[in-house]
């Protein structure tokens, strides 16, 4: 049985229940129960109409749960008032579900958990494993999130930008447990792109595809980070790159530039270079200038300094870096890199070691430590 196909039906089944008058929290539980049932029953007895089967079973689970509830009288009355199987769900129902799960009243971690369960169809256990927290903790996080949005009207328009932020958070979490969150984020963004025609949704999807295409080459067999310039480009996923570029070009043609399209454009320029030496750094700097106009983020200015170092030489990069406050994460790592390119290996080694102490994760710490060690041993020979 194709678990991803099964999960991809989650949002449409859930919205049918909500349209029929089920409250979101109870409907969401019922859909989860139906998914579990499907995993159990389908291998031996696959239904002809998968979605219809899920709707029927989920609705029955919802009614069972409602009846056994202590407040059953009140709720049953309310359900009986609802018109039976409501009108065919509108096309944008899935979109409403994304809005609800990324509602601004939720904290980022709650929005992520709720999106993965209610839109992604993952179980609480899978989400807990992916984020390395106990299942009981994740269950509480999800039920709190549901309570938080319980008063939000389902047809209330939402902000696409908040949804994109949540999906990007999921994407960047990467891989742990038995769920590939990066792949899941791509799937959910792809699904969102079919529900709404928005250039930034396309931009984020393109960005994810282009980054994901390089994943196999980003990690050495020993688990160490491989920098872009040293990656084996034959291992890049050319199908994903082609798709990312195609989606990006269509989005850019609409002339409504946004942050994710600009980031995707930079990723596309990297993907387009047959060798690191053939990278079009001049154009990458121009895209960073666009990005800086759109976001005014210091992280963007930091990355721009790296690009300037490649386009105009390390001295120019260091000059750009001097204008950026040095408390910024990875500032020291960038300084080390530019000094290395400038041939000042002593300073570079010192800065790499310093940057390693400030690294935000183990992979980068080890990478920077190795970089420092390589320069230190080279000088002593």
């Amino acid at each position, binding site marked *: 049985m194709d678990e991803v196909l099964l999960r991809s039906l989650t949002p449409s089944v859930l919205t049918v229940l909500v349209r029929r008058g089920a409250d979101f929290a109870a409907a969401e539980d019922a859909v989860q129960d139906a998914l579990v049932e499907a995993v159990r029953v389908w291998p031996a007895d696959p239904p002809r109409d998968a979605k219809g089967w899920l709707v029927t079973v989920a609705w029955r689970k919802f009614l069972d749960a409602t009846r056994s509830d202590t407040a059953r009288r009140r709720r049953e009355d309310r359900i009986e008032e609802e018109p039976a199987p409501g009108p065919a769900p509108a096309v944008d129902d899935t979109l409403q579900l994304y809005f609800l799960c990324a509602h601004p009243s939720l904290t980022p971690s709650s929005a992520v958990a709720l999106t993965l369960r209610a839109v992604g169809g993952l179980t609480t256990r899978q989400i807990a494993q992916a*984020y390395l927290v106990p299942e*009981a903790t994740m269950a509480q996080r999800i039920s*709190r999130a549901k309570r938080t949005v319980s008063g939000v009207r389902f047809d209330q328009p939402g902000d696409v930008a908040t949804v994109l932020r949540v999906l990007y958070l999921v994407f960047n979490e990467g891989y742990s447990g038995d769920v590939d969150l990066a792949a899941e984020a791509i799937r959910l963004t792809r699904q969102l792109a079919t529900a709404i025609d928005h250039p930034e949704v396309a931009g984020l999807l393109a960005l994810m595809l282009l980054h994901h295409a390089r994943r196999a080459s980003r990690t050495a067999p020993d688990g160490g*980070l491989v920098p872009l310039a040293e990656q084996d480009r034959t291992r890049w996923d050319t199908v994903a790159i082609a798709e990312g570029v195609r989606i990006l070009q269509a989005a850019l043609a609409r002339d409504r530039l946004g942050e994710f399209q600009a980031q995707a454009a930079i990723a596309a320029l990297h993907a387009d270079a047959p060798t690191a030496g053939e990278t079009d750094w001049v154009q990458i700097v121009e895209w960073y200038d666009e990005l800086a106009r759109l976001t005014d983020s210091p992280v963007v200015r930091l990355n721009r300094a790296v690009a300037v170092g490649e386009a105009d030489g390390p001295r120019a990069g260091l000059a750009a870096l001097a204008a950026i406050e040095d408390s910024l994460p990875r500032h020291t790592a960038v300084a080390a890199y530019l000094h290395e390119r400038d041939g000042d290996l002593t300073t570079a080694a010192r800065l790499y070691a310093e940057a390693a102490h400030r*690294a*935000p994760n183990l992979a980068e710490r080890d990478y920077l430590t190795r970089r420092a060690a390589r320069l230190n041993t080279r000088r002593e020979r």
Partner: protein
Amino acid sequence: MAKYLLLKHYRGAPAPANDVPMEQWTPEEISAHVQYMRDFADRLVKTGEYVDGQALAPEGTWVRYDGEGRPPVTDGPFAETKDLIAGWMVIDVDSYERAVELAGELSAAPGAGGKPIHEWLELRPFYAASPTDPECHPGG
């Protein structure tokens, strides 16, 4: 979404405001303290922020490799060890500010006279699981 370790020390932390050793509290005060810790952990489970918590016995042994085919060397415990960990709690929160807020609450656990101990807790961030932003370093 970041994990933090809250470390509680037997020794090594700066002295708390309410610095009366536990054996000099009343039994009720000890019960109140234990209950506070338990309630705190329960509350964190309910907010979806709890990961783990354990208490450690004070006596420990130092162990090291002693060469091929030889049993490990053991030593200690050393009474003079300056830094002695009493236990930990791991939390998974949305921000550093939230981690500080929770550590502050835990430090308010009641001690002698039912007053908060104002115990110093050490707050240590976990390394993030993976490079969080692929565009952020020369690696790409």
